């Protein structure tokens, strides 16, 4: 059996990582789900006792979502409308039990292609803060998750916070998730849409799609097409051609690949219409 570290200070946690190669854990909703063992295997670094890592705060540059902020915390924190999609996603991550324990950082580090936290955070241009004894490095979330179940986090690093720059906290947003049942569902497809509209013109746009490829991804081509367009023309721009760079779905027990593409297209369309509704 390994050693269970549960420091109360970040610097102690980083020291553990520097010396042991322990696996960082927080809510454990994914790590326990992926083992039949009754005890967490190997050396473990439990970061949930580090108070400074929990909670969402406004900083000079934007918003800081501490690593151990739970999905329930996300739901219960008053946030600007640009975060609506993140709060909507939070409500659909498992049941309340999982939302009370599971963390934002854990969802990202677990790097499931169907991670519900990814599309909204991508659509907020989120960055991740990786702390180690060597210091802090900040990288874009889009670069952090490198493949299914893979991230660029180094063994001595801890994802200490998710950062959302002020420049992205614009407009209103919507998260839409499609599954074959109402709750507790792993998405067939999901989208997060954020639009900033002024004078009937779309000034800023972010569209991210999940569960339709190895990692969630921004629909860049569509975004470029949408920026600067009038709101009444927006939904006509949502086309297969504008989404092809964002879709590489597989067929599995939840649905056929072709269907996923169709569904993603429709969800994007609906997400845009929903957000625009909020401006009416």
């Amino acid at each position, binding site marked *: *059996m390994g050693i269970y570290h549960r420091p109360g200070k970040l610097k102690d946690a980083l020291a553990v990582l520097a010396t042991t190669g322990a696996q960082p854990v927080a809510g*454990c*909703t994914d790590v326990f789900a992926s083992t039949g063992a009754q005890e967490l295997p190997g050396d*473990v670094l439990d970061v949930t006792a580090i108070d400074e890592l929990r909670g969402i705060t406004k900083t000079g540059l934007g918003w800081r979502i501490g690593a151990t902020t739970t999905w329930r915390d996300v739901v219960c924190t008053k946030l600007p409308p640009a975060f609506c999609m993140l709060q909507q996603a939070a409500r659909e991550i498992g049941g309340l*039990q999982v939302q009370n324990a599971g963390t934002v950082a854990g969802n990202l580090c677990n790097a499931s292609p169907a991670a519900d936290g990814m599309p909204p955070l991508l659509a907020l241009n989120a960055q991740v803060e990786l702390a180690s004894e060597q210091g802090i490095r900040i990288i874009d979330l889009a670069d952090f998750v490198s493949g299914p179940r893979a991230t660029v986090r180094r063994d001595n690093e801890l994802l200490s916070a998710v950062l959302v720059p002020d420049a992205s906290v614009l407009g209103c947003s919507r998260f839409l998730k499609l599954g*074959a*049942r109402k*709750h507790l569902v*792993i998405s067939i497809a999901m989208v997060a849409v954020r639009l900033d509209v002024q004078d009937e013109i779309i000034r800023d746009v972010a569209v991210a799609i999940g569960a339709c490829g190895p990692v969630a991804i921004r629909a860049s081509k569509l975004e470029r097409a949408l920026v600067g367009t009038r709101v009444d023309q927006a939904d006509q721009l949502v086309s297969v051609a504008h989404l092809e760079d964002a879709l590489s779905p597989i067929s599995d*027990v939840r649905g056929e690949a072709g269907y996923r593409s169709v569904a993603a297209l429709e969800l994007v369309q609906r997400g845009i219409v929903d957000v625009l509704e909020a401006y009416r």
Partner: protein
Amino acid sequence: MISFDLNGVSQTLDVPHGRRLSRVLREDLHLRGTKVCCDAGDCGACTVLLDGEAVCACLTPVAQVADRQVETIEGLGAAGPNPLQRAFMRHGAAQCGICSPGMIMAAEALLRRECSPDRDTVEAALAGVLCRCTGYTKIIDAVLDAAGSGAGPEPEAGASVGARVERLDGAAKVMGHELFGADVVPEDALCVRVVRSPYPAARFEFGEVEGWAAENGVQVFTAKHIPGVNCFGVIERFADQPVLAAETVRMAGEAVALVAGPKDIVEALALSTFPVTWDVKTPMLDVRSAVKPDAEHVHHDRAGNQLIAGFVRQGDAEGALASAVHVAEGVLQTGHVEHAYIEPEAGAAWMEGEVLNIRACTQAPVLDQHSMARVLGLSENKVRIRPAATGGGFGAKLDLTVQPLLGLVTLLTGQPSVLIYTRAESMAASTKRHPADMHAKIGADADGRLVGMMFEGDFDTGAYASWGPTVAVRVPVHASGPYVVPNYVAKARAIHTNGPVAGAFRGFGVPQAAALQEQLLDQLAEQVGMDRLAFRRLNALSDGVPTVCGQKLEGVGIGACLSALQPRWDAALIEAAAENVKSNGKVRGVGVASCWYGCGNTALPNPSTMRIGITAKGQICLHQGAMDIGQGANTVIPQMAADALGVPVHQITLIDADTALTPDCGKTSASRQTVVSGKAAVLAAKALRARILQLGNMGDEAAITLSGAVLTLTQGVARRDISLRDLPDDVFGYVLWAEETYDPPTQALDENGQGAPYAVYGYGAQLVEVEVDQVLGTVKVLKITAAHDVGQVINPLLAEGQIEGGIAQGIGMALMEEFHPGKTENLHDYLIPTIGDVPEIVSHLIEVPDPEGPLGAKGLGEHVLIPTAPAILNAIRHATGAALTQLPARPDRVLAAIRATKT
């Protein structure tokens, strides 16, 4: 050391910090009210409160509860059920009870935040807990009424039948005291794990097993250790399944060896190191490959991989279809459906003298006893089955699961043993609903009367026989639906593959057949130009008209069920049409489907025996051996017995199923317990009543009152007291007792399936309203109206619970449930309906008495699932025009079917 507050008491424990809280509660603290059913946060059964918020104990490392407050089900209502637990009892919100502790803790967290939540809030708060029995409806009702008060009725003598009596065994379920298969672990029990085949078809050889065992400090048992016959099966004539495979495996998940030893050692073992080498063969995974002439035989003596075929013929179906004015024809394929009871199979075994005791979840204690004796080479009186509380079964706990594995270890070692399946193991090893590959054709005349029907279906029975014969025989008998079909031919074959064993699952193949037959009826109604409900009412079976088996029935209630749906049907069609004027990409549809279902074994003996006695101290004991797996036999059978004896039901003490204490009540299967065991109970109670009246020399109308140890008989002014203490003890410790057996009269089927396969049938019809998203292909069930003819309602609360729970499973079968070996062996990839997937359900309990059923009662348990899927399919078609040819109707399949209508 970790310290925390547990239910108000501080605890300090020396346990590994990374241990699951669920494990600490159950094993280190012996608080087994918190249930562990998936170990993955998928089911929520282990929900506890951490600082007042719901979390899954299975996902919580105990280190995280340090210096915090943990509350478990044991902490609620230390002085009896709290108001929430009372509400659960009052509303019938617990059936099997395995999810109840988790459900109640999740609701408790909500009620502390909000004292009068609305329905949506309740749904959101409970969404993380899965229930497979109730359909959630009564759970929501209970939470909404948690502030209410009172208890269900305690009817007077003679008034039990028909009363909404609370479950007599309900308190233990809502308090977390109920002891399921995993909840009793004998001291020093050997922990047993099973080595299973990863391959669906292979030959294998063991390596240095003894060396491996010695090296690891465990004992290993394989086929060569089995002292009796290494073969079991629910139907003896077809028994073909080894307890532990020898040389050949025919399915993935098949057991090949047992490892037993101290818990810490056995649990830590990597079974992948077990010395076995596999010679992997190409598996046959579907019936179309298995019936090819050159296909390998799964069992060498079963040609064409056919286990059995069932056949019914009446009149000239081919001729009638050829000359029919209207003909509808279609195909339907269905997949494996997993029972997904929330309790994985579990149990324990120990020796008492020379008697092997097995305590495990089961639906069939006496059948278990027979099979165990055979497998272990024991006489039956050396095997005692003491069923654990069973956390759902739905058919799969009819077959032996953990019992022979435990029995073997305990018999050979003399030591107690325990075996608890993981969720993945449960799903890999247990039986499934048969995948069906069906084709049917139905014809009608110009006036809309059915003239003929042809049905053929191949049912994938998997590697071993299990209940394949029952499915093959039942399907042709029922594939007509409850309609008059004068010319009929139906054939169903059970075909072996290397897929999971398909066994019994609520309806034995009839739900699959009905899903095709009822769709064709809609198409025919359309061709004839008739309203779909009117078309069914026109063709409904009625008293004295022969069934497709030539059986003339009385008390046929399908007409009354369909008629009960008429008002909602009319309204729903108008509402749907009004909604559909809007063009928002969503369309509404209304569908209806019927069911009929024969109760008990098909044309085979099927007896139940009940014993009832009174002790010298004045305790009335009912030896009720009909397994209650949540459906309510422990309540409805005493209700019937109470009225037959003439005492209040709450004066009856229940002696629960145990092969040493209760006579054989057969299996909890085929919707037979209310009808067959219930009738035995009525006969036994009547016989006891007759003895009492005879003893008091009173007439049949006399009232019996039990007060203390005195029975008082009164009739008019006449009164007699019988002092029980003065009576001599008879056998079984009773001063007065009676035992009666009832076997429903059936008649064997001839070579054309003609005869009287069942003594009693039940009937039902359901009306489903859906909304289909035409772009995404998603289906939302809006409302279900269900009318079920139960002959005589014994307990409306429990009957509604059966309907709601059956409908939930029907929704799952229709829209989301599809098991793939190796891919969906968990409860997040295998989807069952959540609390948000079951709509409002309105139940109409129809009472057309059956002349044979006890007090007129008919069975209900399986009937309730049969119409749901076809009614949903018919509603989808009504909404969109799309006809599904494959179940489940996943969004991608629905969308493909919608698109097919437009080409």
